[in-house]
């Protein structure tokens, strides 16, 4: 693998499902992120994108596989995790839900530095608020979440992560609950943080437009595996995997030729189909375009993508 800042190797995470079954939320995923890179993890609910993010954050211990940070394997002792989380921070979705309504902006942002016993708390909070675009920072110290607009609240959440001076931000749907007009502002902020602080950003989202706006690389997940990855331009301009093609075709836009609306509900990780895991919903297989490889589609599992940076890879019998 090329030099990576944060990576996951053959990650598997299994949850016990209702009724005694097992949900294979992550079923062998490789991802490596370089310093200063912005990577978007996309897919439907239940595809494992949030589990991948949580595993990379150390919030979930993988049953198999390892998380690597700066060349060291992540350890799961309380002390090691605490040290790790100072460097790899989570930005939650829905700022209205993740901020305590009775904590002022100052208290919300100061919590991290306090937990980690950092010196000069006021200085850290001031710096973080200013980096998150809340200026002048002192004016926001004593404000409460209900006095802020949606965009400002999201900035407070981001400031809370920045207060620890991390190297990596992992943002789960950072703009999905925001107004269209505010969305661009927050995305611009993430780009600016990368430029000014050299931050590495992982964004979990179902919004391909967001990926086009800010991500260097896209990782498309389906049922616990990465089914396609590559540079944003490659994946979105010439997608290889039928699932990526379908996702792209339902982005609301006018110029569409034809949208491929996949029938059925998001797939169920307690019942992963044999063969290619996408085959029951695959439009190429149903439409006959994959007739030549149809046998393989229904019976042979695909190799797990290596996740090597700089390569456009897809886990599909049609393109392998």
């Amino acid at each position, binding site marked *: 693998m090329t030099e990576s800042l944060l990576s996951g190797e053959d990650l598997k995470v299994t949850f016990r499902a209702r009724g005694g079954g097992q949900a294979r939320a992550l079923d062998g995923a490789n991802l490596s992120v370089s310093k200063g890179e912005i990577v978007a993890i996309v897919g439907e609910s239940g595809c494992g994108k949030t589990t991948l993010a949580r595993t990379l954050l150390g919030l979930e211990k993988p049953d198999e596989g390892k998380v690597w940070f700066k060349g060291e394997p992540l350890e799961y002792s309380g002390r090691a995790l605490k040290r790790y989380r100072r460097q790899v921070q989570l930005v939650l979705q829905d700022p209205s839900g993740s901020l305590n309504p009775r904590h002022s902006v100052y208290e919300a942002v100061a919590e991290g530095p306090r937990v980690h016993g950092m010196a000069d708390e006021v200085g850290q909070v001031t710096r973080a608020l200013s980096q998150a675009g809340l200026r002048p920072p002192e004016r926001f110290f004593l404000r409460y979440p209900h006095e802020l*607009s949606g965009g400002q609240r999201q900035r407070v959440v981001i400031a809370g992560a920045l207060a620890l001076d991390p190297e990596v931000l992992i943002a789960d749907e950072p703009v999905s609950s925001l107004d269209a007009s505010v969305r661009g502002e927050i995305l611009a902020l993430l780009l600016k943080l990368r430029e000014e602080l050299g931050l590495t950003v992982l964004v979990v989202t179902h919004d391909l437009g967001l990926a086009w706006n800010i991500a260097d690389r896209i990782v498309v997940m389906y049922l616990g595996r990465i089914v396609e990855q590559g540079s944003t331009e490659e994946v979105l301009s010439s997608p290889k995997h039928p699932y990526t093609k379908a996702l792209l075709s339902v982005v609301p836009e006018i110029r569409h030729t034809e949208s491929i609306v996949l029938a059925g509900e998001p797939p169920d990780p307690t019942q992963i189909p044999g063969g290619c895991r996408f085959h029951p919903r695959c439009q190429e297989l149903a439409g006959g375009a994959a007739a030549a490889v149809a046998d393989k589609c229904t019976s042979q599992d695909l190799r797990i993508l290596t996740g090597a940076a700089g390569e456009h890879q897809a886990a599909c019998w049609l393109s392998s």
Partner: protein
Amino acid sequence: MALLEMRDVHVTYRSQEGPIPAVRGVNLSLDPGQILGVAGESGCGKSTLASTVLRLFPADATVTGEVLVDGDDVLTMKWGQVRAARWAKASIVFQGALHSLNPIQRVDKQLMEPILLHEADVGEKAARKRVVELLEQVGLPGRLASAYPHQMSGGQKQRVMIALALACRPQVLIADEPTTALDVMVQAQVLDLLSSIARDHGLALMIISHDLSVLATTCDEVLVMYAGRVVEEGPAGDVFEHPKHPYTRALSAAFPTIGDMTSRFAPSGLPGDPPLPGELVSGCPFRPRCPEAEDRCAEAEPDLRPATDDQLAACIHIGEAVST
């Protein structure tokens, strides 16, 4: 004849700081089978506007103008008539489907309630039969009738909400942010469903959303609201692709066209926050955030004026030689 018509509708809320004008003079008209989109940020008055159709606004709100549902003015009706009109003439698919269903009641019971309340001649057996029909109409298997909400996915719950709104066969359907919390693929399914229901059954459908791209692909016409007023209206595709009002331009640019290199690493937003309804500036309310504002924008609030043959926009630059 239009199934839903609004004429110069104003809604003013009372507050300790004085009156708050939430909707300020909206006109619209919606024919059978037609789909109208209402776009705008939080606080622009779009949900308040929808609440007038069923007279669901709070008691301290002052509403003037006319809201005609199938020719009858909802605002002057007696309460008995309003109650009869709710569900049966017009209904709303509320925002946040994931939390609107009763978690401890089976789906069939929730769907039967409005039917039994509104249609005295329908017995329980017939109502049960209609529940299965309704579920099938929204693309769900009839067996889900006996399911509880927690046993369903987000998309399924949203479909149940739509079935609920259709339970008493209304002519006007209003969907308030019907897809906001849903995944892209499920969003596409729900939008397809809503538009086919409107077309097949001749319903007048109004979709409210902050996502102009969603409205552009689903609706015939779109109204863009800002600070309680309509600032642009026209055919959905034109409004999205060739917006005339600077505000619409900002909303439209917020959703990048994938493949368009000008938006690559250049997310587009609109600085500032939407104005609070109680604190409007003089002249054009969009002036403080407008990239094209001039001194004369402070003089008077512009009215809607024709920008093209079928597009209207409320901006003083419309119709001037250098318009873009």
